[in-house]
């Protein structure tokens, strides 16, 4: 089984002295739908940033489909599509241009990129917004535009960093249906989200990171069964979440 992402001993210490990653090792098999979960500031976005070239690592190695990001940077990046946490496109540009330009940065000619971008925008429900400036889109539409942009270079590995934050239920379901369809066609997906019920339903494998270290990982069933002793938060009389949420709280709670 080949690996879409292989991380070994990854550490990151920011200039402020904050140690964001403490020797993280992680493997994501090709074709997997992988959930990387953790509380705010756990190190999820730092892992994604290093993998995609937005953050410099302190130590460790990262390979994407066997291509080391330090020595085979271009080949590694060719495999990746990124939907970042923050909206990061020029709001004064037309939606179609945003997607077509992204294809250009990957060396895709405009004659190929324009029909491809048009189809992606239509598939994601933005067909009638193609010639509008991105600033006119709603929050959910902006997220879908970012997905279209991330897919235009036909990546083998799609990274979604909290893609459904602030998106309403109906749109979220539509997005997951679309992405699940892509996963079934062989696209490897790495997802970070705070919607744990969604991760529980969608992901084959899961890793939970806390304070810069992986505290649990495995298939979703393995992780859930390892912590299904029924004693977690048994004394809690308040709201109880899904099974994954209970595991997550057990492993990351400060108490």
């Amino acid at each position: 089984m080949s690996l879409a992402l292989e991380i070994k001993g990854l550490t990151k210490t920011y200039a402020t002295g904050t140690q964001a990653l403490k020797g993280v090792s992680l493997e994501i098999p090709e074709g997997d739908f992988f959930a990387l979960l953790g509380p705010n500031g756990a190190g999820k976005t730092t892992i994604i940033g290093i993998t995609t070239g937005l953050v410099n690592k302190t130590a460790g190695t990262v390979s994407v489909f066997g291509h080391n990001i330090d020595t085979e940077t271009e080949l590694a990046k060719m495999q990746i599509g990124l939907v970042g946490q923050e909206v990061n496109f020029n709001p004064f540009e037309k939606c179609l241009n945003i997607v077509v330009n992204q294809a250009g940065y990957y060396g895709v000619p405009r004659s190929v990129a324009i029909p491809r971008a048009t189809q992606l925008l239509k598939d994601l429900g933005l067909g009638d917004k193609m010639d509008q400036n991105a600033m006119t889109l709603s929050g959910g539409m902006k997220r879908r535009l970012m997905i279209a942009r991330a897919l235009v270079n036909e990546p083998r590995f799609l990274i979604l960093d909290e893609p459904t934050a602030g998106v309403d239920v109906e749109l979220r379901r539509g997005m997951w249906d679309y992405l699940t369809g892509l996963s079934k066609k062989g696209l490897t997906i790495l997802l970070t989200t705070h919607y744990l019920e969604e991760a529980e339903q969608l992901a084959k494998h899961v890793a939970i990171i806390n304070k810069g270290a992986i505290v649990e990982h495995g298939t979703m069933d393995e992780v859930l069964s390892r912590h299904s002793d029924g004693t977690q938060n048994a004394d809690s009389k308040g709201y109880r979440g899904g099974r994954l949420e209970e595991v997550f709280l057990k492993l990351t709670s400060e108490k």
Partner: protein
Amino acid sequence: MNPQQLWISFYTMLRKDIVRMFRIWVQTFLPSVITSCLYFLIFGTVLGSRIGDMQGVNYMTFVIPGLVMLAIVTNAYSNTSFTFFQSKFFFRGIDEILVSPTPPWLLIAGFISGGIVRGVLVGTIVLLVSIFFTGLHLAVHNLFIILGFAILTALVFSLAGLVNGVYAKSIDAINIVPTFVLTPLVYLGGVFYSVHSLPHIAQYFTYVNPIFYLINGFRYGFLGIADIPVWISLGVLGGMVAFLIGINWYLIRTGLGLKQ
């Protein structure tokens, strides 16, 4: 990336910037043209007739190369510094390129090309406007030297603007350099006078001003007159290009000011 993919990536960056500068032409092209018209009117027509000749040519003809150079310098610089800062700071659009396989040297090439295009384009417009103030007469001594200095100057100041854009942490940092460094250097670099008309001590200050060498070479291309030999100007320009490419390469490759 193969050569064709590299070209497509470069073309994408350049095309995007050119589309942007034409979309907001009132902000990108018009100010320099209006400013230059005022200079031509006041320094060339009104004051120039009283100043008389400078280095054997009438004053209006003498100042034209310097004012064209002023337009090239300010436009090349501000285009690169602002577009880079904008994409880095306002909406992190630079991430679109950083996550892609576009190599650091191509990112530099893409951004500075926009500055070169704008610098040379605005310089050309200012030159064409100047013809209306000289009775439709334009002196050309050596076209290759004119083009060479125009493009090299735009290159130098695009590179300098990129350094500013990478380092800048606020919009103030983008405005400070052109206002407090670039404009004084251009004005004191011989746009309006020959260095030989200055007192001896002031001449030495002019010789350490890099802009002086650009204006000197550019003016030679038009009028065939120069304060110092043109090859020295070319040498200074070449040195500046090499120095600034080195700084930019280091900044972009290491991600200083760009990556955490």
